[in-house]
């Protein structure tokens, strides 16, 4: 099956449009890590890495600026922006759980109609790592999930009820996939934006719950 719609980079680019001036933002592992590369021009956000950095900059790409005592939560060496600071893990999760982080972008395995998130364990593997995801999903003011719309075998990741172990219940606000941008609302999943060349019916055919068609349904700006 040819993968339709957006690349991983384009998903990250669409998510990055949600970044607003002054926000404190935490990025999860996978597609979310790419989001920092697409921060809109002129928008200053402060990235928090849960291992203990506030205000990291671009990934340190060459020998001259790699310092292994400056890593993000994906283990990549990062640069620091002016005003950056370090802190221990209890302070880090005080920021996260205490509601001091404005936005978190997480990867997803399944998201339910109610915004329940499962992102840490594929049951058939019999094991998984929670990491900081449960605290981030519960504590951040806004949660965006960036993921592929279906599994590799074509099964919907947007489901009526998550069958995978939950990360948090009712936590997700916005889902950006390779096919669409979908808001979680009390009435259900509201399809707001379609990837170029993708139709509402096509997205619906790969989504388990009924999608609500936004009155303002539009093609995604990238």
């Amino acid at each position, binding site marked *: 099956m040819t993968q339709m719609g957006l690349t991983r980079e384009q998903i990250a680019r669409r998510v990055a449009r949600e970044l607003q001036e002054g926000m404190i933002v935490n990025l999860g592992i996978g597609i979310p890590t790419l989001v920092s590369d697409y921060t809109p021009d002129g928008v200053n956000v402060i990235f928090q890495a849960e*291992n203990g950095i506030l205000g990291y900059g671009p990934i340190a790409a060459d020998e001259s600026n790699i310092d292994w005592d400056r890593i993000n939560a994906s283990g990549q060496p990062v640069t620091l922006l002016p005003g950056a600071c*370090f802190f221990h893990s209890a302070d880090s*999760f005080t920021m996260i759980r205490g509601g001091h982080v404005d936005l978190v972008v997480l990867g997803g395995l399944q998201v339910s109609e109610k915004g329940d998130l499962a992102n840490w364990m594929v049951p058939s593997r019999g094991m998984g790592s929670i990491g900081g995801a449960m605290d981030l999903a519960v*504590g951040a003011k806004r949660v965006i999930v960036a993921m592929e719309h279906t599994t590799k075998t074509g099964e919907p990741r947007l489901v009526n009820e998550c069958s995978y172990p939950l990360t948090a219940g009712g936590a997700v606000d916005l889902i950006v996939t390779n096919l669409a941008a979908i808001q979680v609302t009390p009435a259900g999943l509201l399809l707001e934006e379609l990837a170029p060349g993708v139709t509402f019916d096509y997205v619906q055919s790969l989504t388990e719950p009924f999608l609500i068609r936004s009155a303002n349904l539009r093609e995604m700006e990238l």
Partner: protein
Amino acid sequence: MKKVYATAAEAIADVDHGAVIMFGGFFSNGSPTNLILALAEKGTKNVTAISNNIGLVDRLDILCQNKQLRKFIGAFPFRATSQGRPPIQEAFLAKEVEVEVVPMGTFVERIRAGGAGIGGFYTPTGIDTVAAEGKEERTINGVRYLLEMPLKADFAFIKAFKADTMGNLIYRGSMRNFNPIMATAARITIADVEEIVEVGELDPEVIITPGIFVDRIVKGPKHDPDGFD
């Protein structure tokens, strides 16, 4: 009391079979590598390891390969990889090692509680998930919380940048992570540091871990990873 030890082997000489040990570090950053290698060399068995991660370019994998681990408690025991299963995953599936997966914020707060003399705490993290199984749930001001219990250890193996001979510690960059918290929660805390200076040489304004939390100090080489994946 003299806190400075000449070698990592001497600093961990009384870590006996069955010890419960905290290990600082996030990936290999802030990981007490010299103490881990000394423990592998010593061959202490039935260790309970309390650590954020295992096998994420830290060297705790070696304890697993050597069959020194009985149990692992942490946030990141398993990872997706294309290069076969890491030792902890093999050992878990073979039921040789017990694994308790704890959300990271709950993990560090349990250690903080253990060090601070707190009997437990309520957190919203993990409600309606497997992390809630068997735990008391309580609603406070309309928010649902889980009761989580403190974590303590026999030993904390931590990493710092510099120590003075009283055990006051400073860190460098993101190596701080779990180290200052773990330093408070063990019967004996051993710090693996890059440099030891005389008392008075560290600025009191920048000391992160007060020396009263540190029992032993040993100087050792710094271990940077070759890369990450």
